[in-house]
């Protein structure tokens, strides 16, 4: 749950790992991953990767509908629920519930991103039944006792205060506020001090009854459990949930503020820069070509063009990168850098130049081959522990990619052609459309908007 105070784009990346370019690295798995679809007697489906080599079970679950569905004036509701489900349930108050988890070494956590509400359970086999029962209680019978609600509310508020002047947070919030003006994505997922203060226990209960249900549940399980055992556990944990979630609908939107350069004047020694433009949805036919293109542009950590030009040749930044962020209701192509105030202007020029260059002249066959080699070679390397595999199982279901996806994914990368990459570069990348946010005191910069602090 450490992500709840993270900038929203980061939260979205972490909560929906398949969406992030960095998560797509991969080899043809030298061994296919054996994924089983298990359906319980009560009709609850989970994808399972059995592995009895360690006495551990990892479970990840997800419900579509996260912070973007928070009611106006109650921003931060989904996030607050995620902090409270393990703060007392059934006949156990917060300390009793937490002690049951701790004494059996059970990890249970919940997360809210813009598009999803999710959670993770990890337990030793010997405590498996108890762990799944505690999960049932947390989802079905959360208490929301006053003292726990106020304690978590205070933690959220002090967390917001602690990050009030964090340049990365300010940059993210300014970027999302500008590009999604008027859309729920414009709002910080953790909420504001005012909205968090306004959230009531009724709001919390309303979120739980509306969002957490069997018909929108997605489950991935990895580890020391058989399909037969899992069926019973699924019914135990999720069988008591309401059958249907409350429907919600948000409009799809294109990011606005194209071409704007927004400077938030802040006294930090290093300026934080965020830039971005319209991206591609996950089901766009060019998605894989864009993934390869992004790897060459700013995704490959020590080999990308942005890394080479901004960091390696000139030493202008420690960190410079780009990534694709396809969400449910919008798609972004994002990037960031941190550089001293005097070098912001030249760094942004360089980034725009790379953007323009790759659009006009495309990539080389050699770059394409190397990017594909990396993306296919690194994919399987990520799935060496039960939590990351459980995350993969859920993300693949969430995106509707099909149970064969994991073992076919590298062929989708291999099919990307030079023409395809260069075509998507021409179609999507637009240096003039980049929205740039700078937090700091940048020199020689032509801002379209300047935001100053009061006083």
């Amino acid at each position, binding site marked *: 749950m450490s992500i709840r105070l993270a900038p929203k784009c980061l939260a979205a990346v972490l909560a929906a790992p398949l969406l992030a370019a960095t998560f797509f690295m991969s080899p043809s798995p030298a061994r296919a991953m054996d994924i089983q679809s298990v359906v319980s007697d009560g009709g609850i489906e989970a994808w399972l990767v059995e592995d009895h080599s360690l006495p551990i079970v990892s479970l990840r679950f997800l419900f579509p509908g996260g912070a973007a569905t928070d009611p106006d004036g109650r921003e931060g509701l989904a996030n607050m629920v995620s902090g409270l489900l393990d703060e007392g349930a059934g006949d156990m108050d917060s300390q009793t519930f937490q002690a049951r988890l701790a004494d059996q070494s059970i990890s249970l956590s919940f997360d809210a991103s813009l598009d999803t509400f999710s959670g993770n359970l990890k337990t030793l086999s010997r405590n498996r039944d108890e762990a799944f029962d505690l999960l049932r209680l947390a989802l079905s019978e959360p208490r929301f006792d006053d003292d726990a609600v106020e*304690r978590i509310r205070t933690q959220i508020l002090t967390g917001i205060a602690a990050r009030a002047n964090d340049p990365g947070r300010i940059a993210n919030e300014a970027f999302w506020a500008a590009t999604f003006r008027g859309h729920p994505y414009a709002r910080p997922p953790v909420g504001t001090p005012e909205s968090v203060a306004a959230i009531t226990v009724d709001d919390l209960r309303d979120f739980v009854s509306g969002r957490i249900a069997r018909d929108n549940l997605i489950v991935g399980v990895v580890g020391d459990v058989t399909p037969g055992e899992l069926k019973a556990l699924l019914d135990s944990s999720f069988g008591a949930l309401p059958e249907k979630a409350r429907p919600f609908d948000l409009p799809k939107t294109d990011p606005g503020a194209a071409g704007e350069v927004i400077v938030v004047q802040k006294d930090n020694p*290093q300026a934080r820069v965020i830039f971005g433009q319209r991206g591609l949805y996950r089901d766009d036919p060019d998605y894989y070509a864009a993934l390869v293109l992004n790897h060459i542009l700013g995704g490959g950590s020590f080999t990308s063009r942005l890394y080479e030009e901004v960091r390696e040749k000139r030493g202008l930044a*420690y960190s410079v990168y780009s990534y694709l962020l396809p969400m449910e209701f919008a798609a972004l192509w994002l990037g960031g850098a941190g550089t001293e105030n005097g070098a912001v202007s030249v760094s942004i020029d360089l980034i725009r130049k790379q953007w323009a260059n790759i659009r006009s002249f495309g990539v080389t066959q050699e770059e394409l081959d190397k990017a594909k080699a990396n993306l296919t070679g690194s994919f399987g390397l990520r799935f060496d522990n039960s939590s990351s595999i459980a995350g993969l199982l859920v993300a693949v279901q969430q995106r509707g990619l099909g149970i064969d996806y994991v073992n076919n994914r590298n062929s989708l990368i291999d099919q990307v052609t030079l023409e395809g990459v260069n075509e998507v570069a021409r179609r999507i990348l637009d240096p003039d459309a980049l929205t740039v946010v700078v937090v700091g005191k940048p020199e020689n910069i032509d801002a379209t908007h300047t935001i100053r602090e009061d006083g």
Partner: protein
Amino acid sequence: MSLKSVLRAPVRHALIGLTVVPVLTGTALAQVFDPTTFELDNGMQVVVIENHRAPVVTHMVWYKAGAADEPAGKSGIAHYLEHLMFKGTKTRVPGEFSKIVAELGGQENAFTSQDYTAYFQKIAPENLATMMELEADRMTNLTLTDEIIEPERKVILEERRSRTDNNPRALLSEQVSAATYLNHPYRLPVIGWAHEIETLTRADLEDFYGTWYAPNNAILVVSGDVDPKEVHELAKKYYGVISPRKLPPRVRPAEPEQLAPRDVVMRDARVEQPSWSRRYIAPSYSAGETKHAYALEILSEILGGGTTARIYRSLVVDDALAASAGAWYSPGDLDLTTFGFWFSPRPGVEMSEVEAALDVQVSALLKDGVSADELKRAQQRLIDGAVFARDSVGGPARVFGAALSTGETVADVEAWPDRIRAVTVDDVNAAARAVFDMRRATTGVLLPAQEGATPDAGEKRERKS
């Protein structure tokens, strides 16, 4: 971890790496990993941990040299050199190493701490030999020129701005470390002071490289889907041919007896949520009264291990004085380490009031000790943690690399659950009484710019005309 750990304590020995990839710090979680170990003829130690769950290998080389091994007045060399190790060698142009790893689908990085510098790649098993060839090459053949080191100096200064200067809590942590140690180089930041980074020379970097980067000062750790016999053959072929070097003794200036508590109070206009921490100088697995180390790990769990631990329960839940609070202890340092407490007060609560409540807890601990039940529960959680540690390829490699770089042995790591299990109530109470002495404590307080400063009223947007 949940929200309760968002305002985590500043960790002194934050590892710093080539990129902003978070790395594991804190308590080593070891258990019976059952590794295969051997030593090459040139003195290089090798640890192989088999894990055949996925076709993945983590290949790491650790050097027993970190920031605390730098010459006086030249802070930052170890970390600067770590960055430069990704440049060229006699036979490879700058960046070639990373390009080869990338083409093979590998992931790589490196990190520097006070006690060690480590390099790693995560790759498919069939690429292990290539990684060894590359890593062995840069162990001896690194080439440094001004054209290479000058842009990287700027990168590192940007890294420092990003990591430290932009973050008041990181700045305070640096100041507190400098006050915690009176003489030992743990007082200096791993990344270095900016004014010293600016003046480091190529000769400084080459001297450090020439002194410490040698097979007999290195540990090879290979974890994953491998056969130890094959790893042994490859290690002999690539690393075994490198000549050992005469190493200087690894002696750092020692701490004198500490006689006075220190308070470091920092005000910064960027702070809107105050925070507080206190660190007591404490033994590690390898320094001071080492017999207390395992008991202190248990004590740290009893006091600070989550929301049911003593500190959180009393300050955050029962007294409702703090928004968050906890304790930490990192035993895996070569020299004296610290045991710390931290909290962030609830809005409207005076720092002194929370501090007094914490003092009550520490006094009660020293007077009444811990209970047998608390001990048993903490032991179970720690030992269970060692099982979870096996659910990883890279994690166990880090455990062995860090342990062998800081004076521990493979046997020590393997015996960890037994040693945790053997700790008694009396051991925990004796350790607490040995460590919690205010004369050896440094308190760090982070406050807004001026008393009563109100939180930012929000940002006003102005349209440029």
